[in-house]
């Protein structure tokens, strides 16, 4: 009892001194992310894919997609690195242009799902009662029905109504968000409810903080890391769903290219056996992009936990 003093002990002071002077949680997370080789390779691949798809076609001499009947279904060569398709268009150029659409649809539908899901989840958690009941019943209903059949039905309706090809891309985004928001709403709601029970929220009450401050300074910052992870992972899912839908001719339609409808275009025995450059590149693009996104998302999950110390 003789060591009693009002000041900090040596061990305490030491412990504080070893950590860097000013550190932000985000910077610490970034630092940890950089050390995660797998996640970084996923990230680099995604950046590469984005650059290739959005900038690549600018450097291609075939970007106008002119039909060339003299050069149909040509095998890969120095002029056409991935060959040409049945209309004589350059496959590589089309692959990158398709990537623009596929990635845009994936990212945009994720954004819409996240916004919709967060707002609805937060509203449900905040108001509880009947509002909560209605939102969550709808979400549960959508979650119990598997997503693809709903998408198929909606896609078939779009074809029935003869929606022009240039609009279908936007409608597919909305369709994907429609099946994407319930999972996010549920996640946001349960997170909000559990954060509200945490003791630091009780401390916020004792301090007399107002609702706005509680929500924006205490609750939301604790949800955002998880939301980032889930959002990232959901891009992969959306890209995959769009591909499946387009493959079955129910998503984005030609002439707007996507990876899914490129495979669909080669969906016959002759192309499958004789012209593999038509379907292998889009297949590989879908596969590698989705894997890269998932690897990166998993890495983010490991890194964004503030309690985790190296």
């Amino acid at each position, binding site marked *: *009892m003789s060591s009693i003093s009002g000041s900090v002990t040596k061990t305490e002071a030491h412990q504080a001194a070893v950590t860097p002077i000013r550190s932000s949680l985000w910077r610490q997370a970034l630092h940890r992310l950089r050390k995660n080789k797998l996640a970084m390779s996923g990230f680099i691949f995604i950046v590469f894919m984005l650059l290739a798809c959005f900038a690549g076609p600018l450097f291609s001499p075939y970007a106008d997609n002119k039909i060339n009947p003299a050069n149909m279904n040509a095998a890969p060569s120095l002029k056409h690195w991935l060959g040409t398709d049945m209309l004589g268009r350059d496959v590589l150029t089309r692959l990158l242009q398709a990537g623009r659409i596929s990635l845009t649809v994936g990212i945009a539908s994720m954004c819409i799902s996240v916004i919709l899901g967060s707002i609805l989840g937060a509203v449900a958690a905040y108001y509880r009662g009947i509002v909560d009941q209605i939102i969550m019943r709808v979400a549960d209903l959508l979650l119990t029905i598997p997503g693809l059949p709903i998408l198929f039905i909606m896609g078939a309706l779009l074809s029935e109504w003869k929606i022009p090809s240039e609009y279908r891309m936007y409608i597919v985004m909305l369709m994907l968000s429609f099946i994407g928001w319930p999972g996010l709403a549920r996640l946001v709601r349960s997170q909000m409810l559990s954060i509200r029970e945490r003791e630091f929220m009780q401390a916020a009450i004792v301090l*007399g*903080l107002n609702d706005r401050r509680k929500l924006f300074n205490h609750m939301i910052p604790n949800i955002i890391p998880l939301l980032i992870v889930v959002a990232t992972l959901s891009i992969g899912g959306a890209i995959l769903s769009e591909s499946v839908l387009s493959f079955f001719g129910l998503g984005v339609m030609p002439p707007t290219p996507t990876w899914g409808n490129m495979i669909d275009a080669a969906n016959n025995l002759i192309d499958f056996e004789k012209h593999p450059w038509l379907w292998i590149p889009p297949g590989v693009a879908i596969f590698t992009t989705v894997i890269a996104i998932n690897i990166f998302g998993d890495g983010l999950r490991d890194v964004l936990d503030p309690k985790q110390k190296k």
Partner: protein
Amino acid sequence: MSEPLLEVNHLKKYFPITSGLFNRTIGHVKAVDDISITLQQGETFGLVGESGSGKSTVGRTIIRLTDKTDGEVKFKGIDLYNVPEKELRKLRPKMQLIFQDPYSSLNPRVRVGDAIGEALINHGLAPKEEVRDRVLDVLDSCGLSSYHIDRFPHEFSGGQRQRIGIARALILDPDLIIADEPVSALDVSIQAQIINLFRKLQTTRGLTYLFISHDLSVVEHLCNRIGVMYLGTMMETASRDELFKNPLHPYTKALLSAVPIPVPRLKRERIVLKGDIPNPANPPAGCKFHTRCPFAADVCREQVPVFRHMGGDHYVACHLV
């Protein structure tokens, strides 16, 4: 005598026990069962009792962190259960709670400086450009360094975090501080430092404490009055010196005889409590302590003992004194 800072009259808090599909209420946990406490400005009151005796619930009900079942709480003469939400929020800075767990009571994503200063800003109690200086001041009073201001809670030890929790309360210049076992989650070596900080702040700022602990030896160093709780009921209150010299209630005697520090002032018989604390959902009739009291008589099993004035500020609820 001037108006007391805090007046708690016949406070009750029952938690419903629900079961089944429709959450039918099948009983009540009487966590707080008729507690009255009066605190004068500058007093330090220690509330002791075993785990589950309802100490935390008393503290939380006083500041309306949970709603009461019955009774009255007056803070500076204001009936806290009779003011609208908005008024209550304005009163809150003046009555602060220090939490038991310094880990969970700090938001992991808020910088220490912001955590301490935000209530000042939110209540408009200081101009924005002054807040940082005020935070630095209070960090210093709590034994923390100025470079801690931009750190996050996970970068601190348990003792330091508790200092942060104290600083967060202190910056609001509160009249009443309720400390709910603020040292029991800490290493023994750190405990004494935090207790000393509490004592220093009490003398320099004239704070009023309701200090909750399960350990008499902790409140002995800090409190000038002590109340002993058992199963939601106050068994004995007295000034510290009186309670340690002349404990009247068998339960108090038992707690005192378990205090590990040798007390040279007085030789007392060692009372070892048998059995466990009974289920608070189904407390014993009569004197709640009778199942474990070595002196229990028939009257104890039938009649609830009255909380009687024994002279001075000594009160006790026992048939045999």
